[in-house]
């Protein structure tokens, strides 16, 4: 399905990542947003608040992030494509109802424009330190999809992708921006609506009495949805449930329910995967990065290549689910992975795990507040192949 032309601001724009994200959401079909102001993500909500009344959208500023995330799930069951936007402290508060959305298999998008933490941390300065929280920040076992854009253009493009993935897999998609990308202003091309592919929600059509809101048959696919008000009399709960949505409190039901939540993502990882590779064939070292760090890393990679080093790059656009099989494969042909990230080591742990000792993993950490000095990454590349 193509995008609704009413919402699409076709043309060449000069936008920051936050504003581009808002435009991407609109183009992706989002018509409900509940949010709470927090730096450095507020501009997304501000643009939505200005745009929605003119395109038939509903924006509501809630009393906090707990409420925002709960309202998003409610609006999805009412039939709207929905999202919320926040940064670290708000992301922490949203974890409760992100878990609810995971359990209810609610397609929605949660944008986190990351800033330095823990706690209030660095409200106006960048970080990439919520990546593990994105994976498992809510209690219990589940898998999630998380994307990491590295430019305002990608903030537009990938927000649409985030909505599409959420509909396809009935899962909240976490859009993990960082303050640099959010506040960086660049050219953003918004295509015509008929050039934008939008995944519509899959609705059930069939006998009312045979509708099941969930599918736990081991096929790792998701059941179509219905809307409240359509006469299906659905029951949807955060409790462990069966395919009818009815609570079942025992180990057998838990096994079916949780395995489904995990497997629909992990078993389809290659279908969900978006990664960007460059010159990895024959490389001695591959720099694995995401978000703003991938752009800083390019500076170091180019410098290393000038010195004659065989350096490849792998950029994680989907960070979760992690491209485990690809890293494992690469580990057999390269000597080392260098992982620069604006945290004290999160994704590098995943790389190390997947490398299974076949290649070294060298973390280039940064505590946040600014991006890496490319020299630190270059040094790591050089040391990695000594």
């Amino acid at each position: 399905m193509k995008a609704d032309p009413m919402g699409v601001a076709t043309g060449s724009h000069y936008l920051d990542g936050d504003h581009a994200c808002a435009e991407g959401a609109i183009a992706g079909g989002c018509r409900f947003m509940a949010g709470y102001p927090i730096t450095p993500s507020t501009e997304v909500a501000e643009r939505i608040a200005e745009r929605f009344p003119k395109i038939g959208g509903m924006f509501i500023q809630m009393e906090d992030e707990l409420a925002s995330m709960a309202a998003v799930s409610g609006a999805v069951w009412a039939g709207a494509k929905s999202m919320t936007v926040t940064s670290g402290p708000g992301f922490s508060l949203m974890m409760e109802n992100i878990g609810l959305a995971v359990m209810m298999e609610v397609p929605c998008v949660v944008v986190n424009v990351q800033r330095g933490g823990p706690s209030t941390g660095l409200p106006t300065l960048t970080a990439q330190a919520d990546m593990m929280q994105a994976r498992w920040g809510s209690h219990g076992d589940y898998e999630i999809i998380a994307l990491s854009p590295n430019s305002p253009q990608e903030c537009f493009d990938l927000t649409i992708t985030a909505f599409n993935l959420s509909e396809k897999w009935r899962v909240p998609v976490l859009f993990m921006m960082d303050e640099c990308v959010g506040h960086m202003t660049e050219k953003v091309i918004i295509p015509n609506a008929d050039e934008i592919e939008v995944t519509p929600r899959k609705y059930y059509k069939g006998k009312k009495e045979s509708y099941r809101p969930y599918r736990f048959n081991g096929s790792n696919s998701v059941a179509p949805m219905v809307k409240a008000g359509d006469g299906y009399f659905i029951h949807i709960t955060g409790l462990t449930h069966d395919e009818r949505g009815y609570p079942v409190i025992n180990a057998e039901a838990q096994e079916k329910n949780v395995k489904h939540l995990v497997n629909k993502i992990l078993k389809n990882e290659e279908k969900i995967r978006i990664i960007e590779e460059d010159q990895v064939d024959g490389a001695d070292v591959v720099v694995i990065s995401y978000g703003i760090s991938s752009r800083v890393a390019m500076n170091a990679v180019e410098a290393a290549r000038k010195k004659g080093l065989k350096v490849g790059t792998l950029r994680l656009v989907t960070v979760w689910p992690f491209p485990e099989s690809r890293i494992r494969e690469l580990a057999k042909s390269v000597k080392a992975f260098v992982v620069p990230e604006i945290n004290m080591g999160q994704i590098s742990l995943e790389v190390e795990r997947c490398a299974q000792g076949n290649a070294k993993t060298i973390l280039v950490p940064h505590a946040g507040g600014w991006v890496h000095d490319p020299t630190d990454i270059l040094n790591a590349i050089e040391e990695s192949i000594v």
Partner: protein
Amino acid sequence: MSETITDYTNKLTIPKPEENFRHPMEAYIRSERFPHIWCSSCGIGTILTAYISGLQKSGLDPEKVAVVSGIGCSGRVAGYLRLDSFHSTHGRALPFATGLALGNPELKVSVISGDGDISAIGGNHFIHSARRNMNLTIICINNFTYAMTGGQAGPTTPIEANSSTTPYGSYEYPFNLPFLAESCGAVYVARWTALHIRRLTNAISEALLKPGFSFIEVISPCPTLYSRRNRLGTGLDSMKFYHDTAIIQHGAETREVDIEYQQKIIVGKFVDKEKPTFTEARDKFLKKKLGDRFVPYRGPNHGH
């Protein structure tokens, strides 16, 4: 030959009633989920019955009515009603319901949940939903305790009342929920007990038909925990006690309807006024500011 069903309370096999003898409310109940989890003589079942009667009386199309609950004994109501029903997280029934109601303006959304869910962990959502005059009907089942977790004190527990976390009696000032609701902007506020069946049914019907934020507090016995710890006898005894100590005062000042330990309970319809709902106010305001550029949100069945 009639089928048989199992009576789970005493393990006797009893004949399943013929079609003509089905309960008149069965269409509204997910009876396949019975037996329910509530204790014998708990007030929640009575309130569930009053809700169904009130819904029938209101004449609303059940397909356009949704129910949201939070967590706790009362939180299980949504699971037994054959309506579009959602069992959300603890305290978050109101914001979930807000999303549902805004997402599809054709729906009438009710929240049925407990006093702890709505006024403690969900207190912030309660005051803001009332302030916005969100189009929601809130039925707050007040049993003065956290029952599902074993009878702890909560924000409605009266001073002196015994609970598992106030073993010497409670000393915190409790909420006066009708006063809180009115002061935050609710357009309909009433209080009844679980034994005022007819009046409660009428109130639920009125509230469902009232546009905006309507709030009904229902005083309900918890025989297993609150009544036992506070010597109120069986569920029926305490239901009768609440009923008999209730004084009907329609239009009473909500500031004066505090509930003291084992004292009189002022019930009645306290507030019933007109005020544009969140959506009415929003649409009118934005239309004034934006003129023809304003496009109202019409819900999922109209475009998008």
